[in-house]
C-alpha cells in the first residue's frame, strides 16, 4: 500500500483516531513546550509553531478578501448589463442580452474542480498529521510529505484537467460563433468570468507546483506546512468562487 494510505504502527497502538477524529482528552495537542505554554513572553519569531502559519493564513485571507471584491464588482456589472436596455423607435424597451447556454462540458469541469478541492484538503491534512510532523521535525525522514505528495499531484492533475476543459468550452463557443470580440454581451461576460477565474486557477497551478517542489526542498517542516496550507486555502476559495460563478452563468441569465 502506498504510504499515503497506511497507518503508522504507533497510531494503531495508541488508538489514534486518525485524520478527522478527535484525539482523546488527555492527548489534546497544546503546542508543546513546558512553562505552562507561555508563548507570549518571547520575542517576535519565537511565538511557537503556529506563528508562521497564522501569519500566512492571515495574508492569504486578506488577499482573497480583496479578490472577492473584484469578483463582486464583475458580478454586479453582470447583473446591471443584463437589465440595461434602450427604448427603440417604437418606444419599446428592448435589451440586447441573449442568454448564453453554457457548454455542457462546464458541468464536468465543475465536478473535476470540486474533486480537486477534496484531494487538496486531504493533502493539507496529511501535512498536519501529528505523528508524522513530529518525525519530520526530528529529522527522521519525511513521512508527512510522502503521505501528502500523491494527493497534491492528484490536485494538480485535476486542476489541469479543469483548465483543459475550460479551454475546450471556449473552443466550442468560438465554433458556434461566439468569440470574445463579438458584439454579444453575454458571451463577453462568459469569457470575462471564466477567463479571469481561469487565470486565477493558472496562478493556483503554479502555486501547486511550487508547493510540490517546496515539500521536497524546504528544510523546515513548518515552511512545508505553510506552503501547502496557503495553496490549499487559495485553491478552496477558487473552487467556491467557481461554484458561485457557475451558478450565475447557468441559472441567472
Amino acid at each position: 500500500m502506498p504510504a499515503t494510505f497506511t497507518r503508522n504502527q504507533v497510531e494503531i497502538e495508541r488508538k489514534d483516531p486518525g485524520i478527522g477524529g478527535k484525539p482523546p482528552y488527555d492527548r489534546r495537542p497544546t503546542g508543546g513546550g513546558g512553562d505552562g505554554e507561555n508563548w507570549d513572553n518571547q520575542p517576535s519569531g519565537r511565538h511557537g509553531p503556529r506563528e508562521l502559519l497564522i501569519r500566512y493564513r492571515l495574508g492569504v485571507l486578506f488577499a482573497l478578501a480583496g479578490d472577492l471584491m473584484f469578483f463582486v464588482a464583475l458580478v454586479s456589472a453582470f447583473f446591471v448589463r443584463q437589465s440595461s436596455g434602450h427604448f427603440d423607435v417604437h418606444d419599446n424597451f428592448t435589451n440586447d442580452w441573449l442568454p448564453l447556454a453554457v457548454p455542457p462540458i462546464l458541468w464536468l469541469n465543475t465536478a473535476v474542480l470540486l474533486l480537486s478541492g477534496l484531494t487538496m484538503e486531504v493533502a493539507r491534512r496529511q501535512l498536519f498529521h501529528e505523528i508524522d510532523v513530529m518525525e519530520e521535525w526530528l529529522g527522521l525522514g519525511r513521512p508527512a510529505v510522502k503521505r501528502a505528495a500523491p494527493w497534491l499531484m492528484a490536485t494538480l492533475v485535476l486542476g489541469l484537467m479543469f483548465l483543459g476543459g475550460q479551454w475546450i468550452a471556449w473552443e466550442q463557443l468560438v465554433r458556434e460563433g461566439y468569440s470574445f470580440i463579438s458584439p454579444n454581451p453575454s458571451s463577453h461576460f462568459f469569457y470575462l468570468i471564466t477567463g479571469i477565474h481561469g487565470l486565477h486557477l493558472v496562478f493556483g497551478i503554479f502555486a501547486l507546483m511550487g508547493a510540490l517542489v517546496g515539500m521536497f526542498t524546504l528544510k523546515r517542516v513548518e515552511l512545508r506546512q505553510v506552503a501547502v496550507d496557503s495553496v490549499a486555502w487559495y485553491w478552496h476559495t477558487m473552487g467556491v468562487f467557481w461554484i458561485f460563478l457557475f451558478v450565475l452563468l447557468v441559472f441567472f441569465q
Partner: protein
Amino acid sequence: MPAAYSLLEAARVAWMPADGALHGPIVDRLMFWNLVALCVPAVVAHVWLVFAMLRRRPAAGVFPAAIRWGLLAAFCVMYTWMALTAQRLWAENRFAGPSLSAMQVEVVGEQFQWYFRYPGPDAVFGTIRPQLVNAAAGNPLGIDPRDAHGDDDIVSSTLVLPAGREVDLQLRSLDVIHGFFIPGMRLKQNTVPGLVLHIHFTPVVVGTYPILCSQVCGLGHARMQARLLVVSPADFQAWLANRERARAGEQGQ
C-alpha cells in the same frame, strides 16, 4: 440679527446669480441658512483653537463629558434639520413628476452644443434615429422623416420658455455625458447617452439665463453654453408661431 441677515444677503446676492425659478427662493434660503449654520461652528471652533494655543498654563482635569455629549447632540440636531429640510425640497422637485399640463421640451447635448426641441402643434416628439444625425444637412438630432410627428418639431439652439408655466425637460445626449446646468434656475442634471432623463421646473422671472455644461465632455466643454430666454407668454406664443411657420415652410419645400 436682521442687519447681519441683510449683510450676508448682500454677499449672497453678489455671489449667486439672480434666480428666476419658482423654487429658486426656497433653494436660496436653504443655501443661506445652511451656510450660516456651518460658518458658526467653524468660527467658534477656531476661536476655541486660538484660545487653546494662547493658554500657556495647562488646566487640570478633563473636559466635561456632559458638554461633549451636549455639543454632539446639538450637532446631531443640526444635521437632522439640514437633512430633513433639504429632503423635503428634493422630494418636491424630483420624486413627483411634472403636472399634466407642463410644457414638454427636449434638450439634447452633443459635443459641444445644446439643442432644444419643441414638439410642435401635434404635441408629440418625432422619433429619432442616431444614424440620421446630420447637422450639415439641417437634421442635427436625427429626426426620422418617415415619422409624421417629426414634421412639425422645432429645433432651436436657444431655449425659449414662457414665464409662469411649468416645463418638463426631457434630457438626452448623443455622445458623452454632459451636464445641463442653468444657474439662474437652480437646476442641474446630467444628460446621459442611452438614457432619457426628466426634470421639471417653472421659470418665473423674465430674463436671459446662461445654460452651461457642468460635466467635462471634451475639449469644448467650456464653450458648450446656450441661453435660456424666459419671455412673457404673449412673446412666447409669437416666437413659437414664427418658428412653426418657418418649419412648415421648410417642410413644404
